């Protein structure tokens, strides 16, 4: 087993030695260039058999164990390749949803196309439904063979480049709010879909809003039964458990060299206060790598407790904030002059952009506060807050 893993590691390494894209940061200075870089790299990884290791063996490059997936991700991070961002929702969220809850026709229609480069986005969050996702209000009314959709989605990652959308909509307002939700597959080019990119504080447009005005979705594009979409959404959200955070932690550790460079550049090499703070950061990042590793190693052995993933996420997002804040402090006034940003990277060395970008990790994917609730209630067995509140 260990032997096989080392063989795989060598194989991935030799592929990356010749094929790992260099200079991709310079080729990702604009959104369009970023998308092109992403599509090229994803295509290359599909052909090499490393893009979808978590899919079943019926797909080329699939059927890899979690231990093998970990090796592939370690090597991709170690070689400083671009992260697969544009295809992330497609290969994880759309795949898990269709694989676990989709019917045979839906799987055959959509999964192979993902490997050809078709991209998906997620239509979950709404202006009034963030941490409280089940509060969504986008309506889906059944009219014959179609659902007619009206409403608004927000924080949809790279929706402006997506072909398809995983959509949660409300088919009923009766009963508990989770009960009336239906899961649909929407064509982003359908009449009535308007996409507006969200300009973020660091100059990126990673997210978009989606406006839905009498959009018709055939009933055949429903996943699971009407009103049972909440359970399907759980499959979507549970699809990626730990690989991303491990990869990101390793990348942050690799990027500590940028901080060291900054310390030297600004003449702080003998500043004991700076050295101490750097030591604290190094340990914090090493510890995040250790916990991310431990989480995955436990999962490989089949061990996972409620709240484990929340601890990894909070530890990573806090370390990322500390990392970028330290760079910002060392860079001083230099960092207040606008410099070019790199799309699709969290440790770019543009410290203002990196610092602002770090908020995506304390807010998205279940905010830091939601994770704390999970840790307190499910790990520490503290009482849940009563439902509802009284003025």
């Amino acid at each position, binding site marked *: 087993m260990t032997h096989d893993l080392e063989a795989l590691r060598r194989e991935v390494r030799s592929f990356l030695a010749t094929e790992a894209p260099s200079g991709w940061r310079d080729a990702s200075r604009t959104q369009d260039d970023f998308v092109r870089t992403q599509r090229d790299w994803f295509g290359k990884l599909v052909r090499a058999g490393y893009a979808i290791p978590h899919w079943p063996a019926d797909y080329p490059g699939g059927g890899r164990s979690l231990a093998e997936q970990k090796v592939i991700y370690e090597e991709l991070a170690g070689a400083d390749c671009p992260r697969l961002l544009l295809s992330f929702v497609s290969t994880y969220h759309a795949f898990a949803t269709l694989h676990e809850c989709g019917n045979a026709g839906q799987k055959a229609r959509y999964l192979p196309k993902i490997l050809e480069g078709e991209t998906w986005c997620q239509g979950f969050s709404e202006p009034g439904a963030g941490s409280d996702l089940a509060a969504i209000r986008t309506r889906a009314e059944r009219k014959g063979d179609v659902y007619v959709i009206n409403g608004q989605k927000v924080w949809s990652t790279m929706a402006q480049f997506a072909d398809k959308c995983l959509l949660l909509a409300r088919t009923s307002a009766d009963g508990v709010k989770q009960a009336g939700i239906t899961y649909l597959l929407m064509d982003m080019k359908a009449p009535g879909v308007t996409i507006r990119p969200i300009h973020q504080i660091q100059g990126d447009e990673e997210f978009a809003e989606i406006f839905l005005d009498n959009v018709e979705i055939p009933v055949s594009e429903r996943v699971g039964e009407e009103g049972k979409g909440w359970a399907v959404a759980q499959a979507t959200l549970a699809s990626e458990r730990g690989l991303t955070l491990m990869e990101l932690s390793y990348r942050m550790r690799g990027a500590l060299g940028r901080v060291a460079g900054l310390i030297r550049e600004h003449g702080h090499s003998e500043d004991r206060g700076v050295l101490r703070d750097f*030591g604290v950061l*190094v340990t914090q990042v090493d510890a995040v790598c250790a916990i991310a590793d431990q989480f995955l190693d436990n999962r490989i052995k089949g061990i996972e407790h409620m709240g484990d993933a929340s*601890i990894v996420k*909070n530890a990573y997002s806090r370390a990322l904030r500390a990392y970028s804040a330290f760079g910002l402090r060392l860079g001083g006034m230099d960092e207040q002059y606008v410099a070019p940003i790199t799309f699709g990277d969290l440790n770019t060395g543009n410290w203002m952009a990196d610092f602002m970008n770090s908020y995506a990790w304390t807010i998205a994917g279940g905010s830091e506060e939601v994770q*704390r609730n999970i840790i*307190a209630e499910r790990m520490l067995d*503290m*009482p849940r807050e009563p439902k509802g509140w009284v003025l």
Partner: protein
Amino acid sequence: MGAVIALDELTDAAQKAFPAEELSPSRDESWQLAAKMGWLMVRLPEEDGGLGFTREASTALHLEMGRVLAAMPLIPAQLGLQAIAASEDFAERANWLERLAGGEYAPLPMLSAKLTQASDGTVSGMISGVFEGDMAVAVVAELPGGYALVPLEAPGVSLVERAIWDPSRRLFDLVLDGFAPALMLTDAAGAKPLHDRLSGEAQLALAADCLGAAGAALDMTIEYMKVRRQFDRPIALFQALKHRAADMKTRIVVAEALLWKRARDESASITELAAAKVLAAEAFRFVTEEMVQLHGGIGLTDEHPCHLFLKRALLNLQLCGNADLWNECLGRAALAK
């Protein structure tokens, strides 16, 4: 694989022998129990009559001893024994190993020493950080001419107890006045490698003590928050307080992950092992500060055990190099990469 099974067995045995309910159990009874269970010899090689366990095993033990705020000096004892075991050229090695395995106590000090050597070879000055010195027969000390055993009855050796805030332990200075070393463990050149080896072990052991105790402190705090009622509800229901408990848990779990990773990594440098201790000690400090605050007024009383945890945490931070010292070393090491 044998070691993994032994690890669980060791933890189970420790929890049975030292139940969580009894904090800071009697030092002398604990010591006898530990000797009987072979814990003094966990890191001693099998060919020397020890158990020959890995660093993970001693880490597991020290975690459990931290959990009950053990009064007995298992960490200094283990390190003292290891120093003697590592000294292949020490003529009385076998004799001393047997005595120590049988329950006699020769600790390694956990703080620095200020010593001078006279032209006649005698040593004067002070060695700080001797835990439970009153039960020691000798101290393993790094003297100017190398590591040596300093017998308590030897001429020119006296012991002075120093009152410390932490009531779970007793600390002594060893005062040397014209002491003539006779039982040399190393020469001057051999001191550095032995120091590095012991220092690394000490960092792991202290990190484990911190995290075992921090875990117990968190458990007690959560229990209290579930029972303590204000405004007609348990205070565990308030989200502001729950979030603090979640952060305490996160700090502990993350520091534990680093501790185990480093304990398993035989190639880890002293600085890397010290990183595990600094992170653990800072987590322990954070958890106990929160513990006192979340207990409210009762946490300020002498009868409640909160202060035992807080005081142990603050003392542990100072042992075998403080956070400032190690963080600077870590920063320098990372800068040199």
